């Protein structure tokens, strides 16, 4: 019998990586994301680019001064170099953002996936727990827990943010798993006798994680903002610590007189969030063969 040829298709874009590298969105966003991560790991290299590079060498005489040579971002209210502060601030902020996003994603995928796949009482229990966390006033909960913990570092803040952040994403995962589980290809895989882990990991998960990935990228910004809110309330990172959240909070009060205090940290924040969002988007597309081709 004569062989039939598929409708369309070009050869080398079938693997995820080459396809990814041809997407400008992915290349630019991953360069930025990597840069931000490098800054997080070795801030001293970047902090010293323009001036002395020490975020703690402050002179009150410089308080709130606008940018000058050697101090491209100017000085904050304490008279510290704002540029090196922003660079060092990336450390806590990005660390918390990455930790929380990863933690939330893992919990959401596991619980949401199980609830969606098994349904019945598993779903009932998970869904009720999600409802509890949804209905609970998260901010109050976070304050109470952090207050009792009395240790306020990146890890504790992250844990608290994960605890109150997973429910929303889990609901999204549950929904898309539910849609995937009822598809015929899952029935077909069950029909050949595949085990539950195989069905879940090979078929259900890859086909339902897309929306969760995109949402996680968007969450990065929210997490950094939440961290700053906790700091503002006095239960987040404590003042000797440097983070974008702390900086943004202080800057709010001086926005009318010293706008650069707000502009520079938020510029960094925006670029970081944007690159993570684009990264999530590009990754989702790349792992979906239908979207892999550049239009």
């Amino acid at each position, binding site marked *: *019998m*004569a*062989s*039939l*040829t*598929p*409708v*369309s*298709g070009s050869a080398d874009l*079938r693997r995820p990586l080459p396809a990814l590298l041809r997407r400008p969105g992915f290349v630019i966003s991953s360069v930025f994301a990597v840069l931000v991560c490098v800054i997080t790991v070795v801030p001293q290299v970047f902090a010293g680019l323009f001036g002395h590079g020490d975020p703690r060498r402050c002179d009150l005489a410089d308080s709130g001064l606008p940018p000058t040579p050697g101090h491209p971002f100017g000085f904050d209210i304490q008279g510290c170099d704002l540029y090196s502060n922003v660079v060092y601030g990336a450390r806590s902020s990005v660390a918390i953002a990455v930790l929380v996003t990863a933690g939330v994603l893992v919990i959401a995928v596991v619980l949401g996936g199980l609830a969606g796949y098994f349904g019945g*009482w598993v779903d*009932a229990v998970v869904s009720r727990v999600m409802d509890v966390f949804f209905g609970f006033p998260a901010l109050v909960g976070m304050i109470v827990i952090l207050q009792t913990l009395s240790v306020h570092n990146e890890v504790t803040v992250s844990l608290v943010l994960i605890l109150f952040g997973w429910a929303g994403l889990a609901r999204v995962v549950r929904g898309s798993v539910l849609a995937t589980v009822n*598809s*015929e*290809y899952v*029935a*077909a*895989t*069950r*029909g*050949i*006798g*595949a*085990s539950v882990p*195989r069905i879940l990991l*090979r*078929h259900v998960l*890859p*086909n339902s994680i897309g929306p969760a990935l995109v949402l996680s990228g968007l969450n990065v910004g929210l997490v950094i903002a939440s961290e700053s809110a906790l700091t503002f309330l006095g239960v987040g990172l404590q003042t000797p610590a440097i983070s974008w959240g702390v900086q943004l909070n202080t800057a709010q009060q001086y926005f009318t007189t010293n706008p650069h205090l707000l502009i520079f940290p938020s510029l960094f924040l925006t670029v970081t969030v944007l690159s993570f969002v684009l990264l999530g988007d590009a990754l989702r597309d790349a*792992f*979906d*063969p*239908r979207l892999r081709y550049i239009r």
Partner: protein
Amino acid sequence: MTETVLEARDVVRHFPIGGGVLRGPAAHVRAVDGVSLELREGETLGIVGESGCGKSTMARILAGLDRPTSGEVRVLGRPISGLRGRAMRRVRRDVQMVFQDPYTSLDPRMSVGDTVREPFLVHPDLAPRGERDRRARELLEIVGLNPDHAGRYPHEFSGGQRQRIGIARALALRPRILVCDEPTSALDVSVQAQIVNLLDRLKEEFRLAYVFISHDLGLVQHVADRVSVMYLGRVIESGTQDDVYDRAAHPYTQALLSAAPRPDPGLRGEREEIVLEGEPPSPAAPPSGCHFHTRCWKADARCAVEPPEFRRHEGARPGGTHLVSCHRA
């Protein structure tokens, strides 16, 4: 007498509807309500019926994808109701399913080669590691696809080609029985012909027996040796292809046959047309007595009260198995 390879006895499947976590279900949809079938070696059993008659639920039960509420399914003589784990997996090899919609029955994220190879990963004893690639390519070739396209993804193929991929996957386990649930209803006529011919060829090559489910009477007549007609979860008539198509005894079968359009304008106005009133009632609240009495032009008082027995048709040929469930037949 040839061996019976697949048998269903009084299969019932009720789906709960409504209700919640703590309350019981508000009602039950009686999707399948006591169906008995028998498929013999090398035979094609057609199941016809309109939407909601339970034919697709029956397909899933026969393929082991769903468990009956009560009743029994036997594959090669072994009951499968109690089986789990390894034993169930062994039975699954013998019954495979071809799905209705080629657009949703393939994982969009898996290359077709991986899709066809997957059965070998689940049943490693079927093919040694080094063999699997070759076997998958072979299967693609058998169903009429270019094995060099194994690296492509489902969206790169047309509907008919996807259906071939689904068939290749089903064949990987060397099943004895293929349950085809409306395998061509999503396809164009010319493509349907390709798939029907392919199934016909594979039947010989792989010594398969088919359960062929469709709403298309003409198609079932073409492929089936024996036919069961379903209405609201029950088989109302069954027999050989000739019994059902030429000597239909149940009013519903007669109406169904008369309503099916024929591709012959010469018959226009010639053939007797029975146009039924209304639509099939909901399987959540089937009518009393004979399920069909609400739409039947032959129904009398008895039909509304007393469910007819599924019995041998009086007009059946000696030794024949023409069964019908009607007081008036």
